[in-house]
């Protein structure tokens, strides 16, 4: 990772798109970088976390995306170049401040990167954040590969400064998580100390000021549109013929490869600065062809721009895309999907390979709690107590590794909307569902968006139990720090102190590796009127991987009842051919939860 900072101009590195973006920032006078982690953008933060100190860049993992955006914006109005990034849904959290950014403007380059996730490899929805450029009145840039992710950082800063607007950069999983060979330029980092000049009529959008600002923004966008028409990043690759393709982001790569492989005569318009939509350029392009295929993921945004252009100028061309059913309305594209669409547009079936398939049953391999994961014991304990007390419970869940409590054998997730929603929906469900509410939320998620909802529940005298699964890290996204952790130069925030200050009726902290103590804690919480909170505290095995002991099953004692496996589904435990259970020494992390479950006391320390 260090190489991303230390590589010399002219060097070539094999980088992820996300890593290349960091280098791009370092080569273009970045001063301030901030984020809240989220796949597929997380590696940008992981790299900055490693190198920011040495590079002389200010970097922080903020409490949530809104705060991260505000930190970056404050740098931009102090004359420092700033960069903030997040996963697509993170921009929903940051949206309130994002929507004012164009109105107030920026005084130095500011890039807001959104990493969209077509096909939802690790997300709760497939929203297309190109809409946010339109909603927030900011220019939009879409890279296609790691080299472009690096090179476009400098370009985006220039556009941002030229027009005094922040720039939205949209990547997708296939670009952020694509690796490629990237050429290095020279590192040139900005100063960390800026200079803020007070100008309230511009920077404070009181209604009277916002009224003027909106007009200013629209004028700026008209100027950006002229600029986009001539941008060197929006260009035509002319291979002849009467069919055109308009492509942005990863679909450009698919289109180019298919055209080359099949020697097709088509004209490709690669759009990179895609909003404001470069009408002049696109209109000229449309006039040079008979029909056009629009290759974009996820929503038909450029496609509708094209229809509107054709209508506006009374030009008639055939448009292939999502709206005529040539391409699907959902999910990411693939080379095969695009090849089919091109076949339709040219009227000739492009050759493909014979498809292979199998009739054999393959095992399902969904993600699972790591061996030794602290979440496992707590879910098991809740299950047992709920059964014992015959409670008709509902389980609002939240986003993190602990969402895997959804999986068998736990089935402890009934409702989930977004980060922090377990407490907000829990507050509502406690009144409307007719059930006893037990909400699950992680430490990072609690800081991110759980606190206002907990205040709401206490204020409204709701009766619910909140399980705060504090594994001392933001695990799901790869193990980033959060405000609850002790770190050099930072102040550790106590979850207990926050919860107590909000005034809950019951609070206790328990080690989830201790099943008996966990039972007691949950029982007490469930018999409390009002809001009760159980903090389950034990570090994620990713941060304390050193195992002191591992366990094994004494085959003499094991009766093959499978209570251990059926209750906690630890991936280090397997059933042997004779029906007895074995523990894999390599995989076992020594948490000892299974030991406490075995009725035969057959699970013992491995010597």
């Amino acid at each position, binding site marked *: 990772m260090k190489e991303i900072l230390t590589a010399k101009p002219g060097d070539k590195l094999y980088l992820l798109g996300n890593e290349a973006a960091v280098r791009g920032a370092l080569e273009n006078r970045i001063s301030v970088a901030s984020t809240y982690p989220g796949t597929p953008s997380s590696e940008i933060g992981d790299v900055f976390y490693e190198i920011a100190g040495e590079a002389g860049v200010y970097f922080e993992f903020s409490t949530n995306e809104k705060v991260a955006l505000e930190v970056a914006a404050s740098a931009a109005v102090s004359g420092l170049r700033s960069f903030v990034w997040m996963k697509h849904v993170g921009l929903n959290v940051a949206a309130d401040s994002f929507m004012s950014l164009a109105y107030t403007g920026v005084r130095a380059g500011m890039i807001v990167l959104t990493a969209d996730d077509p096909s939802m490899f*690790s997300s709760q929805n497939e929203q297309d954040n190109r809409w946010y450029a339109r909603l927030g009145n900011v220019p939009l840039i879409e890279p296609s590969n790691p080299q472009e992710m690096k090179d476009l950082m400098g370009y985006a800063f220039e556009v941002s400064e030229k027009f005094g607007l922040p720039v939205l950069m949209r990547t997708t999983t296939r670009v952020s998580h694509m*690796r*490629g060979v990237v050429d290095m330029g020279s590192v040139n980092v900005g100063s960390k100390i800026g200079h803020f000049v007070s100008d309230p009529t511009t920077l404070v959008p009181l209604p009277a000021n916002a009224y003027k600002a909106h007009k200013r923004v629209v004028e700026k966008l008209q100027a950006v549109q002229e600029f986009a028409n001539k941008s060197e990043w929006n260009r035509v690759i002319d291979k002849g013929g009467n069919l055109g393709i308009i492509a942005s982001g990863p679909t450009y790569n698919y289109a180019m490869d298919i055209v080359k492989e099949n020697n097709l005569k088509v004209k490709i318009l690669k759009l990179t600065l895609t909003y404001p939509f470069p009408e002049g350029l696109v209109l000229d392009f449309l006039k040079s062809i008979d029909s056009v295929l629009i290759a974009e993921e996820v929503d038909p945004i450029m496609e509708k721009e094209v229809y509107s252009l054709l209508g506006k100028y009374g030009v008639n061309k055939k448009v292939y895309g999502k709206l005529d059913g040539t391409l699907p309305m959902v999910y990411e594209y693939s080379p095969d999907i695009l090849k089919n669409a091109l076949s339709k547009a040219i009227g000739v079936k492009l050759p493909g390979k014979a498809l292979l398939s199998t009739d054999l049953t393959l095992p399902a391999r969904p993600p699972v709690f790591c061996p030794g994961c602290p979440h496992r014991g707590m879910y098991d304990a809740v299950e047992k107590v709920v059964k014992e007390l015959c409670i008709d419970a509902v389980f609002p869940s939240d986003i993190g590794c602990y969402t895997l409590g959804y999986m068998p054998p736990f089935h402890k997730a009934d409702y989930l909307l977004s980060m922090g929603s377990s407490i907000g929906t829990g507050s509502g469900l406690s009144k409307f569902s007719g059930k006893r509410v037990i909400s699950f939320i992680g430490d990072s998620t609690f800081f991110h968006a759980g606190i206002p909802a907990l205040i709401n529940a206490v204020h409204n005298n709701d009766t619910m139990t909140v399980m705060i699964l504090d594994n001392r890290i933001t695990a799901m996204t790869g193990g980033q720090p959060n405000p609850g952790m002790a770190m050099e130069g930072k102040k550790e925030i106590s979850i207990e102190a926050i919860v107590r200050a909000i005034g809950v009726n019951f609070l206790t902290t328990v080690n989830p590796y201790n099943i008996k103590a966990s039972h007691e804690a949950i029982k007490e919480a469930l018999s409390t009127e009002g809001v009760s909170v159980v903090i389950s505290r034990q570090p994620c095995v990713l941060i304390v991987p050193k195992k002191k002991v591992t366990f094994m099953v004494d085959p003499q004692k094991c009766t093959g009842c499978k209570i251990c496996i059926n209750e906690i589904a630890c991936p280090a435990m397997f059933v042997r051919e004779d029906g007895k259970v074995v523990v894999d020494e390599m995989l076992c992390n020594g948490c000892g939860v299974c030991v406490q479950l075995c009725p035969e006391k057959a699970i013992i320390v491995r010597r």
Partner: protein
Amino acid sequence: MKTYSIYIAGVGGQGVVKTSMVLGKACVKKGVNIVMSEIHGMSQRGGSVPAEIKIGDALNPVIENGGTDLLISFEPAEALRAINKCSNQTIAIINKSPIIPFTVSLGISQYLNPEEYISELKSKLKKVVVLDAESIAKESGNILSLNMVMLGASAAVTDFPVGKEYLIEAMKESLPEKAIEANLKAFESGYELSHKEL
């Protein structure tokens, strides 16, 4: 240069991404272009981890159906899961030891005899090399060198676009110093075994 497509299949924790990193570095050294697509996220917690790689002039790393030249699978069921990316021209290098997912232990899904998965592939692909990479790694002195056994075995495939010398150089740069000896041994053993079979 003709594009060479490699599909690496495995399970979280087996070192799929690390393998592709070594391969990438070797390509940079040789001066050939490489692109790869990896899927992170939920895959870290014991899920399937696929990586798609193209070496040559391709811009896009995602392999079309049937487009794989070389399938490298760290696990038998994961190899068969990639069948739609393969054709009767595909060569496969497969580690024979299964990793049984928790869904099988819970009885809600089924893992057939791994031999069945392998013979299914043998009947459909051009050539399948099966290795006991786990034992080879152990013999080499480090169980974690399993991925380098697989890389070594792949390097013995005739069309493999990067030579051993580049791969070894890349390994020396990418792996922790104290692990290099075992990994080089693992790599060589994988190479020899697969070379004999191919």
